[in-house]
């Protein structure tokens, strides 16, 4: 069969008859290109681009903000920053070229424009004109505010109030308890979210310029501090682990939802997509069917607070099926581990522990191990015996691994599973899978697993899973370091400014001393109170909670324990809204006789700021500086630089640093004003500080590590143009390891923990991985009628919200469902609750409870109620206050929904603070039991 040319032409003409519909292309004299600008067509063109770092949550993603006529019009991801692209742009890329590329930004980041231009921001300094918390304010000048705060006086017609000048005394607070330190400690600085660059600045001011030990009691205890504390007790001070997702094959997340929260969320989610495409197995352990569970191979709806039991069950299976890397565990020092099997880390599994005093068995100060039954210093042995249980000179000693085996074998897998409320097969399956990928499997966790009274133990127990398979610092394994950064505070060989060197950079520096108001990092046994009264302390002391105990500050102020606070300065702090049972804390700061002076630095009328005497308006983070770091999710060196994107929207606001500088200069404090940063270096404005930090980053941590530029100014400009300094993506690995790998000891046993006594019970803590049931501060189980309160209440952060601040963004609230109280469909059916019904959730600590609409779903374990963060504001612009005798405007939608925090349990012994992990200091968010009833149908 063939066709002629003529027939072909003829037939084709017939085809033309059916071509009636239009195509995609048309002719044009000056044709436009199909693709213009970025791959994602972006109709908004700015006249300049500024690269900064987000603070919509704590992920610290780089931003590329378009600015037009001085207005920030669009927020994209900074393509140089590793949080926003895979891979991120090479650092040498020309900044103009980089404008053609947009990194990703999440909904929270994109919506930050709305919190920047929020008309409900505080625009001038305010002073209360009614009783504290009455909602009556007047506008004052900065000069008046500074004068009154510094000099005090009869400020409110309620009697004399000491100002900062009077408080800054170096006389002892209590001559009979000198350990409490000087009266200057009666100034407490309590920021909520505060980040690097800024926290070093305020630490310097409060501690070394003013002289208070209470330099920074920030929010971490309501975030995940037991995660930090538990890990630092495993990894020699390194307090954060993350899986190397891009090279891992199996990841089990306990109490974390990386597709919604955690940090950096968008990098976690993006990397997990690549991981899953490669066939990686993602497992989510969480009572709630989160976005992450929806993407996971398996969802394990465990009972809250039982994650350690699950991990111990996995350990039992691993031990019984020879799936523990005994070879790794047998190396007792760095040299042996590296030469034996190439490990960068080594464990204490072979170290001997004395039964009598719970310390390592030592010769001098050298821990000992057994090598074929012969005592040998750990640092000299090539391998140690793992299963030692013997008596030496009358003292029973066991190796750490033997202790762990004994601990793990205390319960059967079924018993562990029963604690978790799941089938034993779930534990066995994960133990099998976890140990089927060599070192490319990781157990990770976050706040869901540790914001419990047993949080630190749980953190150490889950971390131990990684140690048992020897995956630490290996490619595809568990990373306790990575996410590293150039040292902005200096002190490394390449850095020009060692800002921690107070002799050179803070002439006249004060050395603070004493006990912080929350008693963090102080052992109760060192106090006069202990010598007088013994156990229990009046309130708990937290020798391991180095991240502070934020939620304990207000109750301590109320109790004036261990001393009275005379001035509280908060910054971006909303402790009464964000803490479990936080609403109970409000009374604690309302009495001026107990707390004479309360200054809030904030951008809005927050729930906590509304209780202050003065509110000093500060800047939004798009008007601010900062040097935020990133989590070990990112394998390459990352030093983001936050810088003002636009001129201040409200001109009478100030950067936090400026407020402290102004006060410091007026008080004549060392370290501010002329030569404040050492001879020839004045500190009059924030940039005076930040330019030194950025210069340190620009020069780098090693000799010849500098960015391009002939002068310091040029180098700084190079960094600012890119929004920070970023190591190239191809530097992620070094052969079989991650490049910025942790190289140090790992501890299955914490000698420090095991030899420290709890300030309330007087009993020593446990040094091993452990499952401990939920308890009160006295170590007692909590009595509750399960029939009356049949549900656990838990919280989570939806992908479009952080804690408190995102409620002020209309775009985010518009995508937030009206129904916020999640309940399992079978539970709802039993209670006659339908989706959308108005329901009330209440507890024994809050019988009145909170009300909101029900979200009936199969995506939550029966017996659990879940309410997301960010909703249920009762201030924050959601309702008006009185300013200069006039009612302000407000936006009701900011207060939509309800929060779980008000119904969470108070500690039954202390009665004015939530349940708390006595080791890490974490506030318990997931241990309270509640009831739910229908209030009204739809």
């Amino acid at each position, binding site marked *: 069969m063939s066709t002629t040319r003529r*027939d072909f032409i003829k037939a084709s003409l017939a085809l033309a008859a059916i071509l009636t519909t239009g195509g*995609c292309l*048309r002719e044009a004299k000056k044709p436009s290109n199909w693709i213009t600008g970025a791959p994602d067509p972006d109709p908004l063109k700015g006249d300049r681009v500024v690269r900064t770092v987000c603070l919509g949550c704590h992920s610290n993603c780089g931003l590329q903000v378009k600015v037009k006529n001085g207005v920030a019009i669009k927020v994209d991801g900074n393509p140089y920053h590793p949080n926003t692209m895979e891979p991120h742009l090479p650092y040498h890329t020309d900044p103009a070229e980089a404008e053609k590329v947009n990194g990703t930004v999440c909904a929270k980041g994109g919506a930050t424009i709305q919190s920047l231009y929020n008309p409900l921001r505080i625009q001038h300094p305010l002073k209360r004109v009614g009783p504290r918390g009455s909602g009556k304010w007047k506008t004052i000048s900065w000069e008046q505010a500074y004068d009154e705060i510094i000099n005090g006086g009869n400020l409110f017609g309620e009697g004399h109030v000491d100002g900062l000048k009077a408080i800054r005394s170096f006389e002892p607070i209590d001559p009979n308890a000198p350990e409490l330190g000087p009266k200057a400690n009666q100034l407490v600085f309590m920021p909520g979210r505060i980040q690097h660059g800024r926290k070093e600045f305020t630490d310097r001011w409060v501690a070394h310029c003013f002289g208070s030990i209470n330099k920074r009691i920030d929010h971490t205890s309501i975030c995940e501090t037991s995660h930090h504390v538990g890990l630092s007790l495993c990894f020699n001070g390194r307090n954060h682990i993350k899986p190397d997702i891009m090279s891992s094959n199996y990841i089990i997340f306990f109490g974390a939802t990386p597709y919604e929260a955690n940090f950096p969320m968008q990098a976690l989610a993006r990397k997990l997509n690549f991981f899953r495409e490669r066939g990686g197995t993602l497992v989510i352990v969480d009572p709630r069917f989160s976005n992450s569970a929806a993407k996971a191979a398996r969802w394990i709806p465990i009972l809250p607070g039982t994650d350690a039991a699950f991990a111990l069950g996995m350990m039992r299976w691993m031990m019984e099926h020879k799936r523990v890397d005994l070879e790794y565990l047998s190396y007792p020092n760095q040299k042996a581990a590296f030469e034996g099997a190439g490990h960068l880390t080594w464990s204490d599994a072979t170290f001997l522990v004395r039964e009598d005093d719970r310390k390592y068995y030592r010769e001098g100060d050298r821990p000992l191990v057994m090598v074929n039954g012969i005592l040998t210093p750990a640092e000299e042995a090539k391998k140690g015996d793992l299963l030692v249980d013997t008596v030496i000179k009358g003292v029973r000693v066991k190796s750490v691994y033997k202790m762990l085996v004994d601990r793990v074998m205390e319960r059967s897998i079924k018993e562990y599973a029963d604690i978790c409320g799941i089938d034993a097969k779930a534990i066995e399956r994960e133990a099998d899978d976890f140990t089927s990928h060599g070192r490319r499997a990781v157990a990770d966790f976050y706040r869901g697993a540790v914001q419990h009274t047993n949080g630190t133990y749980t953190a150490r127990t889950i971390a131990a899973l990684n140690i048992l398979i020897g995956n630490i610092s290996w490619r595809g394994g568990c990373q306790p370091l990575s996410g590293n950064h150039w040292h902005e505070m200096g002190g490394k060989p390449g850095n020009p400014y060692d800002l921690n060197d107070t002799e050179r950079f803070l002439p006249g520096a004060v050395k603070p001393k004493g006990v912080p108001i929350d008693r963090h990092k102080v052992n109760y046994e060192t106090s006069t109170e202990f010598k007088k009264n013994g156990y229990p302390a009046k309130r708990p002391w937290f020798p391991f909670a180095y991240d502070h105990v934020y939620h304990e500050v207000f109750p301590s102020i109320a109790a004036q324990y261990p001393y009275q606070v005379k001035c509280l300065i908060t910054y971006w702090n909303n402790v009464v809204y964000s803490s479990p049972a936080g609403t109970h804390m409000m009374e604690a700061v309302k009495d001026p006789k107990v707390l004479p002076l309360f200054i809030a630095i904030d951008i809005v009328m927050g729930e906590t700021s509304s209780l202050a005497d003065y509110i000093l308006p500060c800047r939004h983070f798009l008007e601010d500086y900062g040097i935020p770091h990133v989590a070990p999710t990112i394998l390459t060196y990352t030093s983001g630089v936050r810088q003002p994107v636009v001129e201040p929207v409200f001109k009478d606001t100030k950067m936090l640093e400026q407020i402290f500088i102004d006060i410091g200069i007026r008080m004549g404090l060392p370290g501010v004003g002329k030569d404040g940063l050492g001879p020839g270096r004045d500190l009059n404005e924030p940039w005076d500080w930040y330019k030194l930090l950025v210069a340190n980053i620009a020069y780098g941590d090693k000799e010849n590590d500098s960015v391009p530029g002939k002068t310091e100014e040029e180098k700084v400009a190079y960094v600012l143009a890119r929004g920070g300094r970023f190591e190239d993506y191809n530097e992620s690995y070094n052969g079989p390891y991650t490049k910025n790998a942790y190289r140090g000891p790992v501890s299955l046993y914490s000698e420090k923990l095991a030899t420290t006594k709890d300030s309330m019970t007087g009993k020593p803590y446990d040094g091993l991985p452990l499952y401990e049931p939920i308890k009160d501060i006295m170590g007692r189980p909590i009595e509750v009628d399960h029939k009356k309160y049949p549900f656990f209440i838990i919280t989570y952060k939806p992908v479009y919200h952080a804690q408190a601040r995102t409620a002020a963004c209309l775009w985010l609230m518009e995508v937030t469902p009206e129904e916020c109280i999640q309940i399992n469909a079978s539970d709802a059916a039993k209670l006659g609750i339908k989706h959308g019904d108005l329901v009330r959730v209440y507890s024994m600590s809050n019988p009145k409870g909170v009300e909101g609409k029900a979200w009936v779903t199969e995506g939550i374990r029966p017996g659990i109620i879940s309410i997301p963060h960010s909703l249920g504001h009762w201030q924050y612009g959601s309702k008006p206050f009185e300013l200069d005798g006039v009612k302000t405007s407000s936006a009701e939608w900011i207060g939509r929904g309800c929060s779980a925090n008000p119904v969470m349990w108070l500690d039954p012994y202390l009665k004015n603070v939530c349940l708390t992990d006595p080791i890490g200091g974490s506030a318990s968010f997931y241990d309270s039991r509640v009831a739910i009833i229908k209030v009204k149908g739809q």
Partner: protein
Amino acid sequence: MTEILDSKEINGARANVYLFFSRIFREPPTQDLLAFLLSERGLDILKTLFPMEEVLRELGSLMEEVRKGSLTLEDFQLDFDSLMRVPGPCYVRPYESVYRHDSSSPGDGSKPTLMGEPAYQVSALYQKAGLEPCESTTNLPDELTVELEFMGHLCKQAERSLEANEQERAWKAIAMQREFLTEHLLSWAPLCLEKIISNAQTPLYRTFSRLLISFLEGEEDLFR
């Protein structure tokens, strides 16, 4: 290249064929289109254009099945959607960037992505040829039917230039046809069409994919 390309009629005829196939794979079939394709006249036209016995036999049986009612218009529409529009098991991702992805591209290279380098290249060629996207267009520039349509436009440009005796302009259009065919269309469209042949749930799109492959083979010979 063969002399046949000097013919304005041949360029016009090729344009019609390209635009025909662009239409076939751009939108789901309508009742009118189906009626034409499966009519005696339609079949005769296709027989003349594509003298491929086996394929045409399949079209004949298809015509019979439609007559009997065992295949309906809805079946073809569903088939079209699942092949060309809906990311499901049959979806062929009809984009050049997908078939010509660079394994060293972002990520681990295991999955091709949309809007790769080819999309930018073809977009630049469209502009060079004096063409821009219609306002209503939501398609990506390297989608199969856009590339077919572009070849149709280039053939028409050559036809018009030859008719106006603008030899140089005609040759520019023909040279661009060659460039586009060899650098782009022929490098991936047959792979995509093979995928349609294997994923299609009805004989209609299998048949037209075979016809288009055959036509493109002829085009390749034409420029050899």
